[in-house]
């Protein structure tokens, strides 16, 4: 079925079916309004002639099952024709509001240029897609569209690519993607997909705290970095719960290191010391980061961990 025929099909069905079926149109420059059969015929003609760009709008099929003339057979006819339109490459059926939020959220020119550079050095399409979503969430947060940001974030962090989406969001939000650009521009290490993949698995300069994070996780992550000689590490947490988790996990790490040193009767201790604690807000949420530095010091000089928090 050609696109024009699809509109004409709906025009006919709106006339012949009962009140249970309605079709609405919305767009950037158009508030939600019901389409009459006459308007649909015009749209069908425009689909052929191209007088207006019919692709700029969102179309909503509204089905009222509580209507007394509702007919399930006719409903299936509507869905079947919609399915045909999808399979014939001219329609996209949206089942999640986050898709519309994503559609209307634009990237800045700077972000587009960054993405171009990541793509040019061979980062895979799925990574590029995750970065685009990450930038959109940030743009919504930074423009005060907190509800939309939350919905897009929930969708991105619950889908199949949730791990990658979250990692790129964390890296973008903490400013590391800007550093990656500098690295690429100066011929640095991140000039291939393999290299960024390794960074996603293990990113030495930062640890992002998740809700399932426990003290032992942080101790293991820091031990790995200590072994690799990473001098500076920043811990990031967002939201009250994660901030509490981070503070507890860091306290646990300190207690573990001190206890190990005491058991070995060591006078010196090598550990990540809290240099700066930064409190800030992302959108409407409290956030906190700890700048840690790997230091080798006298055990007696170590302040109580409570002083460090």
């Amino acid at each position, binding site marked *: 079925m050609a696109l024009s025929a699809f509109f004409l099909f709906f025009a006919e069905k709106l006339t012949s079916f009962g009140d249970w079926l309605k079709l609405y149109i919305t767009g950037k420059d158009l508030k939600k309004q019901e389409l009459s059969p006459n308007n649909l015929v015009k749209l069908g003609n425009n689909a052929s002639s191209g007088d207006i760009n019919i692709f700029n709008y969102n179309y*909503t099929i*509204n089905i009222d099952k509580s209507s007394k003339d509702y007919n399930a057979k006719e409903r299936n006819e509507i869905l079947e024709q919609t399915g045909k339109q999808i399979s014939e490459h*001219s329609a996209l*059926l949206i089942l*999640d509001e986050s898709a*519309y939020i994503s559609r209307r959220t634009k990237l800045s020119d700077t972000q587009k240029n960054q993405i171009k550079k990541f793509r040019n050095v061979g980062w895979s399409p799925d990574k590029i897609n995750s970065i685009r*979503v990450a930038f959109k969430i940030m743009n919504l947060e930074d423009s005060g569209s907190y509800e939309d940001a939350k919905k897009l974030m929930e969708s991105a962090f619950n*889908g*199949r690519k949730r791990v990658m989406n979250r990692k790129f969001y964390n890296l973008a939000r903490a400013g590391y993607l800007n550093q990656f650009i500098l690295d690429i521009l100066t011929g640095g290490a991140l000039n291939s997909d393999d290299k960024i993949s390794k960074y996603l698995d293990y990113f030495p300069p930062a640890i992002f705290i998740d809700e399932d994070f426990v003290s032992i996780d942080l101790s293991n992550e820091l031990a790995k970095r200590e072994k690799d000689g990473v001098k500076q590490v920043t811990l990031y947490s967002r939201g009250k719960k994660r901030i509490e988790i981070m503070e507890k996990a860091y306290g646990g790490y300190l207690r573990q290191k001190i206890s190990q040193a005491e058991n070995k009767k060591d006078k010196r201790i090598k550990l990540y010391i809290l240099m700066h604690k930064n409190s800030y807000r992302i959108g409407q949420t409290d956030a906190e980061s700890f700048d840690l530095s790997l230091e080798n010091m006298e055990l007696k000089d170590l302040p109580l961990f409570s002083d460090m928090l």
Partner: protein
Amino acid sequence: MEEKLLWITVEGLDKVEILEGLGFKVLDSGILTLNGKNVLSSDGTGPVKAEEVKAIIPGSLSVVTDISELEPIME
């Protein structure tokens, strides 16, 4: 890629009703099938549960299970 698609949503029906109306079958386990075969996500992974579907993209009724998979359409 310039977007040349109608964006359609259906109000008043739940996800399973919409998917079944389009010709999919939802098994008791929630797994989505089409013509007796498990449906794969547009990135090739599967099987897919009905609750995971975020959109249906043109061509062979392939489904999107992650919002990032729609980015190439919008770019």
